[in-house]
């Protein structure tokens, strides 16, 4: 059986959204290959409802390796478990999310099971004549799109950019098999130990997986004005991002940074204010679906990649926009 596998992710026992995004990808590929899609989950204390949701959103089978030693992500143990299952079941395709988990565990597994891996793909399709997986990804800061295949090794593996696909709607009529797998002791690597997990401030953001990001840059002029961006983000149910300029000035902490030395985002809506759009910044936002820019310089690069631009003073535009959105809600 030529399975397609997707590596689901959990955080503190709750499935992360990328698990469902991957299934949407995996199901489409599995249909083209006339095979099944299986979601693999490593963790502990995951509810039956969550596992069932994987079936409802596309999985034909769920393999859940359930053990307290898998509650926290630990690269070596996770890699051992995934490699062991690959060697046992021989899937043809393995997809994972290009997250801080997927981007380290998958390259590790690729070496262990002796196959290729393509990073951070935004398109996946089956080549009709060869049935091989065509893996397309942005490189050089999004300036090129490279299509890659793994012709002579199995499985064909790729990490997929978060938010680059939408989860399938829940279909309660779907049924599938949930198989619980016991962790083999010999696969547990105790060298690196997870001590604790913490967020430094209440404003810790997961901008890579946010639907709406409102980002501010140098044009905010000072830390106090970050509030303008925060207020708008609140109205749009979004999170706050920032250009490197704003981070390096200490206005916001590093996890907010978008761009080459920060995060790459694929938000449904990105609204930028006071960001001119350096090449490095643009590299981080090219796969956003809708980009709105507010900047006082009509020549700013950001307008070249925007779907909607306002040439104006952000100190006037942002408060008015926030206020009108608030009114519209009432």
């Amino acid at each position: 059986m030529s399975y397609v596998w997707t590596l689901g992710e959990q955080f503190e026992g709750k499935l992360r959204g990328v698990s469902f995004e991957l299934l949407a990808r995996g199901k489409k590929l599995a249909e083209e290959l006339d095979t099944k899609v299986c979601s693999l989950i490593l963790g502990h204390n995951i509810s039956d409802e969550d596992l069932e949701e994987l079936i409802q959103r596309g999985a034909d089978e769920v393999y859940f390796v359930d053990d307290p030693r898998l509650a926290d992500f630990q690269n070596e143990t996770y890699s051992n478990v995934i490699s062991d299952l690959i060697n046992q079941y021989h899937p043809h395709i393995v997809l994972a999310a290009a997250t801080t988990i997927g981007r380290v565990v998958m390259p590790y597994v690729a070496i262990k099971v002796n196959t290729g891996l393509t990073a951070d793909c935004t398109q996946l399709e089956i080549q009709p004549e060869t049935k091989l997986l065509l893996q397309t990804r942005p490189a050089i800061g999004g300036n090129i799109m490279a299509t890659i295949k793994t012709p002579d090794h199995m499985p064909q593996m790729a990490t997929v950019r978060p938010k680059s696909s939408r989860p399938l709607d829940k279909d309660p009529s779907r049924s599938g098999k949930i198989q619980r797998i016991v962790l083999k002791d010999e696969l547990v690597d105790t060298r690196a130990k997870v001590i604790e997990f913490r967020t430094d401030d209440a404003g810790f953001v997961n901008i890579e997986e946010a639907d709406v990001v409102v980002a501010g840059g140098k044009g905010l002029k000072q830390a106090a004005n970050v509030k303008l961006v925060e207020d708008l983000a609140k109205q749009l149910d979004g999170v706050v991002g920032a250009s490197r300029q704003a981070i390096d000035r200490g206005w916001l902490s590093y996890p907010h940074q978008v761009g080459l030395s920060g995060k790459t985002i694929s938000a449904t809506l990105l609204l930028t204010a006071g960001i001119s759009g350096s090449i490095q910044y643009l590299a981080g936002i090219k796969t956003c679906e809708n980009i709105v820019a507010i900047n006082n310089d009509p020549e700013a690069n950001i307008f070249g990649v925007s779907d909607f631009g306002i040439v104006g003073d952000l100190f006037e535009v942002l408060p008015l926009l926030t206020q009108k959105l608030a009114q519209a809600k009432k």
Partner: protein
Amino acid sequence: MNIIVLVKQVPETSNVKMDPETGTMIREGLETIINPLDLYAIEAALRLKEQHGGKVTAISMGPPAAMKALRETMAMGVDEAALVSDRKFGGADTWATSYTLGQAIKEMGEFDIIMAGERATDGDTGQVGPGLGAWLNLPVVSYVAHIKEVTKDSITCDRLMEEGYQVVKAPFPVVITTVKEIAEPRLPTLRGNKRARQTEIPVYSTENMTVDVGSLGLKGSPTKVVKIETPKVTRSGTLLKANSEETIESAVDQLIEWLKERELV
């Protein structure tokens, strides 16, 4: 403490110009630089050495011209450098690159930490550091934002994840990949420059490394590039001027309409 830092030479893309006709990057005249994200790893390595003693060795796989990047690391304070270079290494994907680097590192003797930037700005994969860890069967702590504690046989770091920081303690030897938050890179010094010019940098090739020739370069790479396309980056967006009370109000209203049409509000 012996630290090996992985360094890649990449095209300088910060001053890159886009062709307005095609929306693609103009590559002519692009200089090469140290991968900007490697600078954070180099800085973190230098600080560890300053606090705990030992030495920092930079290693780069690439054409002979990558010697320039290695000399730049020495100008920053790196003690030694090694170039991994051979025509047979050309066209390697991340699998073959991490294999080759691993074989070179095996020739270089004992070390405590291999440090790398989170990814290179040209390939954008971030796979070589973790892949190298797998080849050498070492624990990998990726996306490290802070180093909390170092003992004689272990390191404790904050690993930046989507929801926060995972604090991980790992024994030596270990592979660490770093993010920008870890440290502000220092500039090269004149003295460093002078030393960099005067130091002989050894080259590892198929002549002096134990390698399986079938695992090298383009031929040894499991992944193959099918095609490269240059997407048009420009979008044909609405652009409104908002420079008076009326036009600001109108621009904001139109934006809200636009957001509504797309069901974004």
